[in-house]
């Protein structure tokens, strides 16, 4: 299996390298056959990498401990379903995974590439395959998951217990896929620039792939937070850890990109800006991978293989400087079809939204490199921790939420003050009313008040849009309200899908504000039968059961939860000790409601049967996890292909219509 995997990895590397060269050569020497063979090589690379991946998976399942990677990341006791997790648990496997994902996405992107990108496609293919070549070369030469040990151990070292969690099936693969996925829109942008197609040809492909990477990153970040919340046992979900930041920054840049690309799609504006944004997003993704692979930063995420740091730093330098040079070269061609008509327009709102997102990204970047700067200037390392990010990014994020409420309500081009007043007044009133009511009820935390007000503002604006649209559709077509609502959404999917994603952002805001400002925490040691009160809950600890398992000892503690003397629920929470790792992992018991979470985690099992518990009441955090599926729904709707309207209606004219359509509209 090791040989098969390794050989197919090398074949994939050769195919990717060939595809890069053949693609450019074919384009320059005007040989369509060569270009086509380059594309075929890109498809074949997928097959080779599938064989390689499958070999590794089979090696895990068959406990082939002669392979160093398998021995280091699994053991005989590991349940089969965690094979998938073990596959990317270490540096080597995760690089192979990234290579596989990139090759699959590239193949689909090349295959589905629209006809009007034909001229640019060879360059796009070359950019994609060059990136793939890099990853495969690093995997094959420096971090080969098929390297063999000189002996065969009887058992492996086992999988890191912190990784044996449901969230781990999706969090790392989604994040890695999202980071590498940015390569696709980037390659479309670069391909178009190299081919001199500096208009709007690449916009649709760029938007679709941008949104796909965006949603992958967003799901990855949310799942990672959820994992941290349920298993790390400190009751929080975000630490501003350098590697969390490394995934967060490209996500911010992509968020800016998928908004401003809509402006180019609809209005032919921001052409240069979109190229800049996708380059920034790609650069930040490379920076993120460098942080991760350098094994350099203090983080729960580091892979700890520092020899790769240099390679990724070089790739970062190349991946930023060469696109920058291409941008400068093509700069004179990157003129937008139109200029901004007015600052009171949706375009302008999008522009400000972009600037805010980039500001947050750069504040975060500053925080991650500041320790280095301080070392350079004072010879002292000062690390930047959570308060810095909260203080600086908090207000920026609130401003962003505000814009999220305004943007969709102002029209393109130019808004009149009276139309603005009409559309913005009701949500503004609702938002201010929320603030007034909450303040009257005794809530005096400024940030929280503003956040709740803004959440109402955004939600009201969206609901109003839906209501108005549904009503006018109901009147116009006579459909009932439900049908009118569904047809409304279906008729303009990018827009209404976007609204649903906005609602998800509001939910995340609620969760963040709830836990940041209103969380209560208590650490207590309880003997069986003892009780403790937190907020209006009364908890009774009944006792613990010790269960020895093959690779761990589990302590399951039972706690009854009462409110007003009434039994609400009996919760079980476990703490498992893994002797192989000298490591304990906890699984929090969480009673989750939309109002608040009751969160219990056993931090310590004492010999006399008493248990140290950390108990938290986290208001509104439920909304944060529900936001994930809502966001997926919204993105799915926004991405669902929209049939081009004209050709279907007038088939006989479609061909000429397409040809005569001006390219720089």
């Amino acid at each position, binding site marked *: 299996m090791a040989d098969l995997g390794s050989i197919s990895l090398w074949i994939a590397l050769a195919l990717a390298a060939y595809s890069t060269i053949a693609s450019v050569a074919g384009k320059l020497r005007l040989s369509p056959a060569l270009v086509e063979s380059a594309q075929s090589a890109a498809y074949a690379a997928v097959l080779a990498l599938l064989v390689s991946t499958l070999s590794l998976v089979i090696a895990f399942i068959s406990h082939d401990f002669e392979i160093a990677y398998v021995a280091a990341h699994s053991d005989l006791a590991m349940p089969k379903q965690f094979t998938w997790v073990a596959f990317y648990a270490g540096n080597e496997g995760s690089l192979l995974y990234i290579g596989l994902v990139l090759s699959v996405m590239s193949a689909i992107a090349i295959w589905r590439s629209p006809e009007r990108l034909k001229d640019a496609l060879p360059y796009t293919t070359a950019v994609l395959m060059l990136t793939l070549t890099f990853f495969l070369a690093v995997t094959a030469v420096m971090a080969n998951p098929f390297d063999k040990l000189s002996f065969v151990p009887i058992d492996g070292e086992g999988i890191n217990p912190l990784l044996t969690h449901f969230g781990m099936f999706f969090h790392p693969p989604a994040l890695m896929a999202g980071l590498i996925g940015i390569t696709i829109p980037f390659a479309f942008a670069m391909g178009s620039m190299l081919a001199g197609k500096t208009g709007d040809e690449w916009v649709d492909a760029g938007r679709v792939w941008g949104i796909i990477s965006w949603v992958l990153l967003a799901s990855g970040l949310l799942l990672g937070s959820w994992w941290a919340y349920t298993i790390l046992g*400190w009751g929080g979900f975000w630490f501003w850890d350098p590697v969390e930041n490394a995934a967060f920054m490209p996500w911010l840049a992509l968020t800016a990109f998928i908004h401003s690309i809509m402006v180019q799609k609809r209005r032919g504006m921001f052409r240069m800006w979109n190229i800049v944004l996708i380059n920034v997003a790609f650069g930040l993704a490379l920076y993120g991978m460098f942080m991760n692979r350098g094994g350099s*930063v203090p983080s729960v995420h580091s892979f700890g293989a520092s020899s790769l*740091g240099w390679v990724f730093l070089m790739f970062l330098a190349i991946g930023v400087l060469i696109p920058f040079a291409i941008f400068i070269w093509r700069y004179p061609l990157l003129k937008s079809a139109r200029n901004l008509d007015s600052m009171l327009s949706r375009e302008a709102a999008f522009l400000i939204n972009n600037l805010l997102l980039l500001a947050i990204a750069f504040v975060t970047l500053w925080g991650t490199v500041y320790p*280095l700067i301080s070392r350079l200037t004072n010879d002292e390392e000062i690390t930047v921790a959570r308060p810095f990010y909260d203080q600086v990014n908090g207000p920026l994020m609130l401003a962003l939420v505000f814009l999220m409420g305004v943007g969709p309500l102002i029209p393109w081009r130019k808004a009149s003050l009276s139309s603005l007043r009409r559309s913005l007044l009701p949500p503004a009133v609702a938002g201010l009313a929320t603030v007034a009511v909450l303040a009257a009820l005794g809530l005096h935390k400024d940030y929280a008040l503003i956040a709740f007000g803004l959440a109402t503002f955004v939600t009201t604006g969206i609901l109003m849009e839906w209501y108005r649209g549904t009503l006018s559709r109901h009147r116009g077509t006579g459909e009932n309200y439900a049908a009118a609502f569904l047809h409304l959404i279906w008729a303009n999917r990018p827009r209404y899908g976007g609204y649903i994603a906005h609602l998800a952002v509001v939910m995340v805001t609620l969760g963040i504000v709830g836990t940041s400002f209103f969380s209560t925490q208590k*650490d207590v040691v309880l003997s069986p039968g003892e009780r403790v009160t937190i907020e209006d809950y009364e908890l009774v600890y009944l006792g613990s059961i010790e269960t020895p398992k093959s690779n761990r000892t589990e302590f399951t503690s039972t706690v009854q939860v009462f409110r007003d003397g009434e039994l609400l629920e009996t919760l079980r929470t476990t703490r498992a000790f893994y002797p192989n790792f000298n490591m304990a992992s906890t699984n929090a018991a969480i009673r989750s409601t939309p109002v608040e979470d009751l969160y219990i985690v056993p931090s310590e099992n004492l010999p006399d049967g008493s248990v140290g518990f950390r108990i938290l009441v986290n208001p509104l955090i439920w909304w944060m996890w529900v936001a994930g599926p809502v966001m997926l729904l919204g993105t799915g709707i926004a991405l669902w292909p929209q049939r081009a309207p004209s050709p279907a209606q007038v088939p006989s004219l479609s061909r000429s219509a397409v040809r005569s359509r001006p390219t720089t509209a």
Partner: protein
Amino acid sequence: MSKRGWIVLGGGIPILALIALLAWASISSGGNPGGLTVNTDFVEADVDAGAARDFELQLMKGGTLKLSDLRGKVVMVDFWASWCAPCRVEAPTLVKMYQEFQGLPVEFVGVAIWDNIGDAEVFIGQEGVAYPNGFDADGVIAIDYGVRGIPEKYFIGRDGVVARKLSGPLTETVLRDTINELLSR
């Protein structure tokens, strides 16, 4: 200068500066940019054999500890954080060895850095750490000692001189031998 020229400068200089900074950090920390490292492998580093810089530590269980008050004992100062996996891995070893040296002139001092105080306290509770542990919120002690990563340990002899600096999670044997060697000096 043309607009294009300005863009070259305005975009190029920050990019080059950032890359140069990362490269410099990589060189100066032996391939590890980004500051503090998680020391996953055991390494011994050279130390300037000099008197250990004194510090006062706010202890998690209340009170303060002054390093100079421990003069006459072999002191192991351990820099750690609750989120650092190797620190978690070695915690039971440290707990066990601390018990083993009970009754001898040996003291362990834990210094949590770059951490949330609540998390550090929970960690101490979870692992049943009995020796004094404090929180170096400003990172002053870590800077004084030139901590490069965590876990990292400084062994101070009975004369108050820093004798050895060991990085990465330690095994019982290394820990026992190091302390015994210092005791016999």
